[in-house]
């Protein structure tokens, strides 16, 4: 932990201000070298930043936090500079030239916070999500994790399973004493209730959904108005920039937030299920794949021709030969925009149901997998007649809870986790 690290901690320049964070033992001396003056802890002060030759670089607001009670657990300085590229570049270079300082690696600030005991694993995971949150819903869910409420929940589960274990262990180790006989009647009931509680958690909407957005696929034959509707849905909305790597771009995908709810709209290649053309066939296979991944399909083709549970849409109200579907859920004109806002409103309502509720901790893939292990072990324990094996299943559940909050942490897992962070967070 000898290096002092620094990075731009605000968004990419240019911006109104750019915040550079410096963390480590040399943080204060870096401040002094840049400004030639002393700072009081936890006070904002205005100072002129100069390079090694004394040439002024910027006027900046300086915050100085001596360790260990800081975000990273180390000495920490924040330089609130003007947010132009050239200014930040110059301050960056001045810092890089100082001995013992180097630019931070991805996730390194959070990693230090974790390593210095400032946050636990679940909090670190939440923080990672918090920092990549782009909508209010994402932020609220991440806050639940970062704020440690999930960690507290896991601790509660852990003590529940410990209490259950203690009862089995007593029956195993003290069965010869006449004080302890069999397990209490209530035991199996408590175990079953506990298993159901975890089941409830596992059924909750997942955290990834917040990042990926509620996935709406537009499908139907060529020229059924898909692309026009697609544009009508995404155009006026705030684009979400994050791209999902590895998806095939035969289909067009846009991430937008409508009323703060993240959506991913997908326009598929026209579906003609009778095509003989090999290349078109491949495109159609991909489109079929998209339908399978969708949270909702908007079907613009012939009534009843779409996948089950698709919403039947008649999108060409404005056409002269318009023939509405008998059971259309929405009639609209993608071209004139008529009826589109009613559709959007309905989509938002549906997505809110499917996404984590504000203020409710949502599990990510790793947490979901580990919690499922715990639930499965408890489920097996409920059915197990052999006390010894019941005890082993409870132990497995406890081990899973330990993994959830990093009590049984492996280095691989830490590396994987901290690789997710952007530089400077």
């Amino acid at each position, binding site marked *: *932990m000898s290096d002092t690290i620094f990075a731009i901690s605000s968004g990419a320049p240019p911006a109104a201000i750019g915040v550079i964070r410096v963390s480590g033992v040399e943080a204060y001396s870096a401040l002094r070298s840049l400004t030639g003056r002393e700072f009081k802890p936890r006070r904002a002060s205005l100072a002129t930043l100069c390079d090694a030759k004394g040439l002024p670089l910027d006027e900046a607001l300086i915050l100085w936090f001596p*360790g*260990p009670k800081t975000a990273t*657990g*180390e000495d920490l300085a924040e330089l609130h500079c003007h947010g132009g590229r050239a200014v930040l570049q110059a301050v960056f270079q001045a810092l890089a030239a100082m001995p013992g300082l180097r630019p931070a690696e991805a996730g390194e600030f959070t*990693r230090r916070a*974790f*390593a*210095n*005991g*400032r*946050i*636990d*694993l679940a909090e670190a995971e939440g923080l990672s999500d918090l920092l990549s949150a782009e909508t209010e819903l994402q932020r609220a869910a991440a806050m639940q994790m970062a704020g440690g409420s999930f960690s507290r929940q896991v601790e509660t589960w852990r003590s529940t399973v410990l209490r259950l274990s203690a009862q089995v*262990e007593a029956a*195993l*180790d*003290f*069965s*010869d*004493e*006449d*004080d302890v006989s069999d397990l209490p009647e209530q035991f199996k009931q408590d175990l079953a209730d506990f298993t159901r509680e975890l089941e409830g958690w596992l059924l909750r909407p997942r955290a990834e959904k917040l990042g990926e957005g509620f996935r709406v696929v537009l499908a139907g034959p060529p020229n059924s108005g898909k692309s026009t509707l697609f544009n009508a849905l995404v155009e006026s909305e705030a684009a979400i920039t994050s791209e999902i790597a590895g998806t095939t771009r035969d289909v067009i995908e846009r991430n937008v937030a409508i009323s703060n709810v993240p959506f991913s709209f997908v326009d598929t290649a026209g579906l003609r299920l009778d095509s003989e053309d090999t290349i078109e066939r491949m495109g159609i296979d991909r489109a079929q794949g998209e339908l399978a991944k969708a949270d909702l399909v908007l079907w613009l083709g012939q009534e009843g021709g779409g996948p089950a549970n698709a919403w039947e849409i008649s999108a060409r109200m404005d056409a002269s030969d318009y023939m509405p579907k008998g059971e259309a859920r929405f009639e609209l004109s993608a071209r004139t925009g008529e009826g589109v806002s009613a559709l959007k409103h309905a989509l938002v309502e549906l997505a809110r149901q499917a996404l984590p509720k504000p203020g409710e901790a949502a599990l990510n893939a790793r947490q979901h997998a580990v919690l499922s292990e715990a639930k499965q072990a408890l489920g097996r324990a409920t059915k197990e007649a*052999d*006390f*010894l*094996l019941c*005890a*082993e299943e409870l*132990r*497995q559940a406890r*081990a899973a809870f*330990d993994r959830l*909050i*990093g*009590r*049984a*942490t*492996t*280095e691989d897992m*830490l590396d994987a986790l901290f690789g997710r962070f952007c530089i400077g967070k």
Partner: protein
Amino acid sequence: MGARAGLVSFDLNAIGAMSCNPAIGGLGKGHLVREVDALDGVIGRAADAGAIHYRMLNRSKGSAVWGPRVQADRVLFKAEVQRIVRGQANLSLIQGEAAALTLSGGRVSGLELADGTTFEAPRVILCTGTFLGGTLFRGEERFEGGRIGENSAQRLAQQLRSADLPMARLKTGTPPRIDGRTIDWTALPEQASDDESWTMSAMTKARVNPQVFCAITRTTEVSHEAIRANLHRSPLFSGAIDAAGPRYCPSIEDKIHRFGDRDGHQVFLEPEGLTTHLVYPNGISTSLPVDVQHDMVRAMPGLAKAEIVEPGYAVEYDHIDPRALTPDLQVRAIPGLHCAGQINGTTGYEEAAAQGLIAGLHAAADETGKSAPALDRANSYIAVMIDDLTLQGVSEPYRMLTSRAEYRLRLRANNASTRLTGLGIEAGCIGDDRKTWFESREEAREDLQAMFEIKLHAKALADAGLNVRRDGGEKPVAEWLRHDGIELDDLAPWLDRDMSEHAELAEEMAEDAAYAPYLARQEAELRDLRASEGLRLPADFPFNEVPGLSSEMIERLSSARPPTLAAAGRVPGVTPAALSALLVYARRWQTAA
């Protein structure tokens, strides 16, 4: 192992004397006996030589928690210990009071006896039992000693206390001994020795002694009244003893005080031997005055005319905080000095035997340039105990329990040889007899392994009346054994093999097969464990320099001095965040070193 050793004791003829209950083994303790035996220790063989009552505790539960226990004839047990000790090569027996350690350059360099004789030795192992600063209490009476009628080691206790070691006091107790001829046995339910053929030691061919039965009686309201009326006269309640006693084996006055609503407590009347009338009433250890003991005993069914031959008493003694020890049970502050047994805050016999073995193995291995067997929590109760002691310390005499072992399904009392004897052979601590036995057993294992792979059809099993679905298909024997209610014996008709010579091995392998899915699920956990066992925290690791550790964490870690990251995770109260801080720092520190 080629080391020369001397055994110093107040009275050589007392070596092998059982201070307390004349029983060896029990839940968890039986595992320790089998493990010490697997490493060729004495306790299992001596227990068989003295055994007059065998009982497999927890027989109705899964085999991993079975607890083999014997009651031993004190005379026969001691005779066997004496025979083995006196026949041991390279061991000199020295009678005298070990009065002081000689130190040179901060290390142990030898031992001085009370009569002034000195011995040079690079290693000294203290096995003081309850004799270190031992004081006996019985009602208002006080005696100096470690056992009734014997001395205690006061000078050595003084030296250790003044050496600035973390010393403290613990207490234990013993019940009154009763003359069996004055017990009305006919009025009491009997508990017979079980009629199976298992033994404590793998090297014992068959049970040798006639088997006796125990009887069961209970304390009554009248007994409890006698105790309650005199609680103030018990040194435990008068404030004379403030040391903690074992919660798992409380005195009768403690039981009455803490569980006041109970109208009786079970008491086992256990004969002390074939040639004595003494009976040990298991369950009423006490330090009440003699007259109260008398009233309490006589109020119990079958004991109306019972005569007390030797009243019960409590003993309070010095022990060292075992967190001051390294995993080879060496005192960190005094290299060369090891401690084993009750001095480390454990209960006696089995726990003591296991520690004596570990201290001895390590001392001998270090002096002869060998390696002691690599024991860890996943291969032995012995390691579980040593790890618990050295990391967590004790607040009462530590007693082995199966719930202390997280990998309990692997650590069965009946697979101790498989787990440990091979490691013992590598370390050089196994005698020729056991080595020959073990090698032939390993050959038999290969043969039996083929048997577990034989495939059997569900239909054939169902036709023979076994409870399986007829359409269950063809599976190897090993998999059939995972079905509820299918035992190896049930499959014998298809196996066409005489297993009688290695019946216990076949049974062990059948259990392995039955537990296999559970063991497989532990694999990832074990990989993690071994990885973090691999990250060493050397003796000079600066816990106080790890960034972000709170002073509370630093205090906990510095006093327990965990030798590895995995061990740090087992120090009580250490948080996940602290562990990760330790992980990161330890990795850097290792690379930098």
